[in-house]
């Protein structure tokens, strides 16, 4: 446990956490059941206020201005880096680079690290569980370098076939890029043993933590990941924020991706040298209040405790799975245990879009579609699924309401399909 984690005592009780989220207080949203948390979370007052305060009190560009508000902006920005490092158990704050989201983080690794270190004949191992953001960048790398993509399948329950992974892993494997939790099936992958085995063939591992950083305790040092990426906006932070963690050695062997202001040490007509890590990877003006707001989101999660968040999510998920299975013709895609709070399902022959619209008309927000994971859709032989996903402000009453409304939807469409 890092110092920051240890220092912050749980102070906010998860039982009444909903009151910190202003969106549920809007008259139009009083009855809103927000079950699209895997897409983005809502934000607590603390985060909204932090952004607001920056803009009303000390808005300035960082790292350059020799005046009071610029100094304050810089300090708060760098403090957020410390907080994030503590939150994921990174040893050093400069192993944290701020980006727009998980997508950008993965692309940074693809351009800055993989194009340099992956060669023709090398293999990149992915899984069929991957979000497009952890698949399409590697297609680009494969096309540019001549490396091959190999895919680990998932079994009927939606869990990764670990034996297959061990088989695919070889001296050719240069990189394993794997999600820690599927944003469609909710399956949790055992990244610890994935990384252990990868180490033995000297392969690097990128872990896509977009769905885990918000929902469970994460410790990149214990996990021993080379790269760990996630999005701020899925864990109560402002949109337009995300994190690329990399081990110091990985950042050292990585080229900057974007070039321009702040990332340089010296600039001449035809060549330049780079600033220190992590600033070398943060070209141009950053989303400064976004990052400081992400720091506030981390504080908020620490005050509740990642373990409490996980326990809460899990209780809700277990309850939802239990209740949903009582509905006839409802099919759950994905595992029933060892999973996170995101559930994909189908109901009778109702198309997911029709179901989502029906639920919306009853004030329940879920998602329908391929969820940026077409390989999963292909494997499941469906064009789309309906998906519900929970977070710390959700509760059982909402799930009851959701289940009742699913029943209604079945009735509504039943005479037609």
């Amino acid at each position, binding site marked *: 446990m890092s110092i920051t984690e240890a220092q912050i005592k749980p102070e906010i009780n998860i039982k009444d956490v909903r009151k910190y989220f202003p969106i549920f207080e809007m008259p139009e949203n009083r009855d809103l059941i927000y079950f699209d948390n895997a897409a983005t979370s809502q934000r607590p007052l603390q985060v909204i206020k932090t952004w607001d305060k920056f803009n009303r009190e000390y808005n300035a560009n960082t790292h350059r201005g020799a005046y009071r508000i610029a100094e304050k902006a810089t300090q708060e920005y760098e403090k957020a880096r410390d907080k994030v490092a503590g939150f994921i158990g990174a040893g050093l704050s400069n192993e944290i680079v701020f980006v727009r989201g998980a997508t950008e983080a993965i692309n940074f690794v693809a351009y800055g690290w993989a194009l340099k270190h992956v060669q023709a004949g090398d293999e990149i191992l992915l899984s069929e569980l991957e979000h497009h953001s952890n698949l399409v960048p590697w297609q680009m790398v494969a096309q540019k370098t001549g490396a091959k993509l190999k895919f680990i399948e998932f079994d009927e329950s939606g869990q990764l076939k670990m034996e297959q992974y061990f088989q695919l892993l070889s001296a050719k494997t240069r990189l394993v890029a794997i999600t820690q939790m599927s944003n469609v099936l909710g399956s949790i992958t055992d990244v610890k043993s994935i990384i252990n085995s990868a180490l033995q063939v000297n392969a690097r591992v990128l872990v896509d933590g977009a769905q885990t950083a918000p929902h469970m305790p994460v410790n990149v040092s214990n996990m021993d990941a080379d790269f760990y990426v996630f999005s701020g906006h899925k864990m109560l932070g402002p949109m337009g924020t995300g994190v690329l963690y990399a081990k110091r050695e990985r950042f050292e062997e990585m080229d900057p991706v974007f070039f321009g202001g702040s990332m340089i040490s010296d600039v001449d007509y035809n060549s330049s040298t780079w600033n220190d890590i992590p600033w070398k990877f943060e070209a141009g003006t950053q989303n400064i209040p976004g990052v400081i707001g992400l720091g506030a989101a981390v504080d908020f999660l620490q005050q509740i405790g990642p373990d409490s968040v996980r326990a809460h999510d899990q209780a809700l998920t277990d309850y939802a799975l239990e209740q949903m299975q009582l509905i006839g013709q409802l099919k759950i895609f994905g595992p029933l245990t060892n999973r996170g709070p995101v559930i994909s399902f189908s109901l009778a022959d109702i*198309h*997911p*879009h029709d179901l989502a*619209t029906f639920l*919306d008309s009853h004030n329940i927000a879920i998602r329908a*579609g391929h969820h940026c994971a077409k390989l999963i859709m292909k494997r499941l032989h469906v*064009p*789309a699924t309906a998906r519900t996903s929970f977070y710390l402000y959700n509760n059982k009453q909402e799930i009851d309401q959701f289940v009742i409304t699913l029943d209604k939807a079945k009735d*509504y469409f039943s005479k*037609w399909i």
Partner: protein
Amino acid sequence: MDIDELYQEIILDHYKHPRNRGTLENADVKITGKNPFCGDEIILSLKLKDNIVTDVAFEGSGCAISQASASVMTEQIKGKTLSEARELFQEFSKMVKGEINYDPEKMDELAAFKGVCEYPTRVKCALLSWNALKNALEQKKE
């Protein structure tokens, strides 16, 4: 939001009993329409003669709105001239996008899709087959 405004009986009937479903042999144009955000897909085949849509059929899978819209569309354009079909596309587009200056006279059964304008993400569903038609007609022109 009253859900029945969207899912009118006509729509659900067409969804259950799609008209002109299938592919036409010897079609003059065959074209696929896709909605990348949701994965819905329509394959449209058209037979044309002297600038008239003599036959039309569709295949594919998708939600009630996209499938019913395709079904109604096939009925509405069969026998029409290409320019009439194009005009219909325009009027229908306006209606489902919530623009007021469309011609309700021309809508016939298409009027059932009026409620779609209240559901912006579903507009794409209603227009899936129509956009395919538009592309098909443009292809034909060349």
